[in-house]
């Protein structure tokens, strides 16, 4: 697959305009995957010409990329794959997009997602699902499904996504690309449609760990517009030799697909060959993390999505008779069913009388989860396991049962609730040819150590 440095060579030997035109053409030729909701062609070509004339410079000068359509970006509406924001033309750009543009990168389009990033398959998009890059009868994963698929199809060398409970790692795993969910607070979320503010992070899809390091390095750092950003700690490091790695045994349980486990065990063997020690470890609280997640996250969603009122921007119902009808109908028409489920669950767990039993209990349980992780990190450098219990499932397979759909997130939500960095890197394919990803979880701010390890494995 194409790397950023391949693209830079192509720009040097032809032009940024040629490279950007090729990417746009490839996007159009692959329209049947429904990975993109819009192209920002006009703006992209204008910027490419400026790269060729020397007016735009930088580490990524002329390199095309795609953003998930919950990132505010110029050149096309920011829809969050919803009717609510179908015609929303953002008056500003996300900090992450601005930082990449400041290094000369060129956004060529906006990728499909589950509406408002609520989902794990991209089937909750108000505009229809994205197909898996390896099998069009299967899901792309989600919620950042479109971003994973455009990277896997080699349309662009990198794409941005957001990850609240696995929304970068799961589609990366399903489409055989690298996906990084950095430490909570690494990258500014200013200008990205908020979902659950205590776990939302911005990250990237790339074809190599080297490229993930490059893109994350550009996006990381404090932003006064997002007060949860950490001071920039991200800088590439050399791989630490003889690491102690813990394989989370609860992630390798009997109900996990056997071919997924086989691919993880292959990777474990490679880690051992490279001189690292891998031992089985236990994270017993894992069985409760999905319950924590589906209390905490809907609570935060119900609050964050309160802003969509049909007044200042977004969808407004036709000829409302009263203010309450304006709110009620605009929101009913603007949200997909999964958005409504989560908003209402959030309203329930936050209501007086239920607050202590659900929300407070979940936040206390979250502390126990963090304690278990901290204990393991006293003895281990990295924890590993699958990203998802199965390879990409069939389109429509889980859509009628929300709880079944949620179970696909069981291995990705723990790192989200604890704010830990986690990667999904390709670990091979099943006999049927479906990609399987391995997940690596590190201590907070160990993002570059994780990438150094996967980089060394890719080069091994």
């Amino acid at each position, binding site marked *: 697959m194409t790397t950023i440095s391949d693209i830079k060579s192509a720009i040097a030997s032809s032009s940024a305009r040629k490279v950007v035109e090729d990417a746009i053409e490839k996007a159009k030729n692959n329209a049947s995957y429904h990975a993109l909701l819009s192209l920002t062609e006009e703006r992209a070509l204008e910027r490419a010409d400026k790269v060729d004339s020397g007016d735009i410079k930088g580490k990524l000068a002329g390199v095309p990329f795609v953003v998930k359509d919950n990132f505010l970006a110029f050149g096309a509406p920011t829809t969050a794959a919803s009717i609510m924001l179908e015609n929303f033309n953002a008056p500003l750009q996300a900090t992450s997009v601005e930082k990449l543009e400041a290094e000369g990168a060129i956004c060529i389009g906006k990728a499909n997602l589950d509406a408002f990033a609520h989902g794990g398959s991209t089937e909750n998009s108000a505009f229809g699902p994205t197909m898996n890059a390896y099998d069009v009868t299967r899901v792309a994963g989600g919620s950042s499904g479109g971003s994973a698929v455009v990277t896997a199809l080699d349309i662009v060398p990198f794409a941005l996504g957001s990850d609240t409970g696995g929304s970068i790692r799961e589609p990366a795993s399903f489409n055989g690309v690298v996906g990084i969910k950095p430490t909570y607070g690494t990258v500014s979320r200013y200008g990205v449609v908020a979902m659950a503010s205590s776990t939302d992070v911005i990250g990237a899809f790339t074809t190599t760990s080297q490229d993930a390091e490059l893109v994350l390095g550009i996006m990381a750092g404090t932003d006064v517009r997002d007060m949860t950003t950490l001071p920039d700690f991200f800088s590439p490091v050399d791989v630490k030799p003889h690491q102690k790695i813990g394989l989370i045994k609860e992630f390798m349980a009997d109900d996990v697909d056997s071919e997924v486990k086989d691919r993880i065990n292959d990777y474990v063997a490679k880690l051992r060959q490279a001189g690292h020690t891998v031992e089985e470890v236990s994270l017993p609280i894992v069985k409760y993390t999905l319950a924590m997640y589906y209390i905490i996250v809907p609570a935060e969603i119900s609050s964050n999505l309160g802003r969509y009122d049909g007044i200042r921007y977004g969808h*407004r119902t036709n000829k409302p008779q009263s203010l309450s009808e304006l709110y009620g109908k605009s929101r009913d028409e603007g949200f997909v069913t999964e958005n409504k489920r989560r908003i209402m669950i959030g309203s329930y767990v936050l209501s007086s009388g239920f607050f202590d039993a659900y929300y407070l209990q979940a936040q206390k349980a979250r502390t126990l989860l963090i304690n278990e992780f901290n204990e393991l990190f006293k003895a281990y450098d990295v924890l590993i396991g699958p990203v998802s219990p199965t390879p990409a499932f069939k389109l429509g397979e889980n859509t009628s049962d929300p709880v079944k759909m949620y179970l696909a997130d069981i291995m990705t939500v723990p790192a989200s609730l604890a*704010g830990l960095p986690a990667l999904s890197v390709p670990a091979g394919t099943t006999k049927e040819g479906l990609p399987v990803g391995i997940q690596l979880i590190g201590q*907070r701010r160990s993002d570059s150590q994780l990438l150094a390890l996967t980089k060394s494995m890719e080069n091994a």
Partner: protein
Amino acid sequence: MTQISRDDVQHLAQLSSLQLSDKELDDLQKDIENILRYVEQLSELDTSGVEPTYQVTDLENVFRDDTVIDYGVTREQLLEIAPDRLENSVRVPKVL
């Protein structure tokens, strides 16, 4: 076991400012009941004496200088994205 009545769903919809159709109310009643049954298992966990975690940054009291930040967005741009405007105002139906 949590039982969610149709009135409960109606009430939740109202709290959430969602004016739902009858069909949606029926479907959501079933879904919400199933989801709450799933998350209820958390009550098994002993959390006595445990402090809740509300955020994971370890940052506290993040201050900034008390100066105006230029966000590069004009009043006209903001009015342009409003669904209904009248001159320099956003228009809404009569409230009182």
